[in-house]
């Protein structure tokens, strides 16, 4: 996707997001969410984020170590750091650090 299609995509994303943000602020007063929808909302972040990230982790990168892509061990270390520290910055720096170290070792060895 590029050019006009990309801008149309951003505009549509913007309208959808604004509609969600403004929804109950602009709707008549007594409108509420059904209980089942409220319960389901709690599971949107884990389900959607996991569905986005998992295929991306197995996408081919640029450096392989034998049969394994260098991104996989880097991701495993990052999962551990994300789970233990819950810090975005720590997860980013260790994940990129492991990837860069492995890439450097692979190019030296190769």
């Amino acid at each position, binding site marked *: *996707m590029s050019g006009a*299609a*990309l*801008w*149309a995509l*951003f505009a*549509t*994303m*913007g309208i*959808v*997001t*604004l509609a*969600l*943000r*403004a929804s*109950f*602020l*602009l709707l008549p*007063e007594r*409108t509420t*969410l059904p*209980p*089942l929808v*409220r*319960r*389901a*909302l*709690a*599971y*949107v*972040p*884990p*389900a*959607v*984020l*996991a*569905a*986005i*990230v*998992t*295929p*991306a982790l*197995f996408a081919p990168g*640029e450096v392989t170590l034998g049969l394994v892509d260098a*991104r996989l061990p880097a*991701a495993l270390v*990052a999962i551990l750091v*994300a*789970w233990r520290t*819950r*810090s*975005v*910055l720590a*997860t*980013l720096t260790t*994940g*990129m650090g492991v*990837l*860069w170290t492995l*890439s450097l070792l692979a190019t030296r060895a190769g």
Partner: protein
Amino acid sequence: MDSDPRLAAAESHQPEGFSRAAFLAGLRDTAPMMLGIAPFAMITGVSAVAAGMRPIEAIGMSVLVFAGSSQLAAIALLAQGAGFAVIVFTTFMINLRMAMYSASLARWLRRLRPATRAGLAYAMTDQAYAFSVLRFRREAAMPRRDYFLGVALPLWILWQIGTAAGAILGAQVPAGWQLDFAIPLMFLALLAPAVRDRPSLAAALVGGSLALALRGLPFNLGLIVAALAGIAVGVASEGRLGGERPAASEDAARQGPKPQQPVQR
């Protein structure tokens, strides 16, 4: 009509003009968040150009959408060649929580003019909602529009500057740095606090594994099937796996976000 007379009394004290004190109170509350938002914004800009966007497109996306997780998701999906409809649907799913925020804040903001409400809605973020609902509940006389602006406006400015800086700097970085890997890393960092109990872990495991198994489907439709299945499994396993009671989560939705709970195992 207001059923609560105290709330009605507080409404009548909402000032007409701009309240500098309320704006500054919001600014003080939001200041510590900025350290976390700045790198998030920069990474979003860097990822956008790493995925093939021009810097001006990355900046335009931030202005038009202004919602970090959904922007990152769209960037990741564009890089995988996903279709228009799948990306819009994913945006809808990720930002669905904003409707919950808007439902929760409505009773405090409904006296404002519709145009003002729409303007505040555009600037709504997780942070602006969380701080506002806490203050409004405790301090009935807090000027709401200006407090909300005090929280939301600095974050908006920081987000625009951060993504622009990331996009412009990111365009200079050679591909060998593999900065596109920052996108899945960012999502891992966002995923960790979202997994708070066993039902949410079940939702994540089903969503993740199904998305991987179905990644061959056209237009990334596998993502949508996987996300919906994960949500369904999360709801269905409530109670059975010892997660939140339905009544408790309903109450939480009405009252606003809870502070992040430690993992229960």
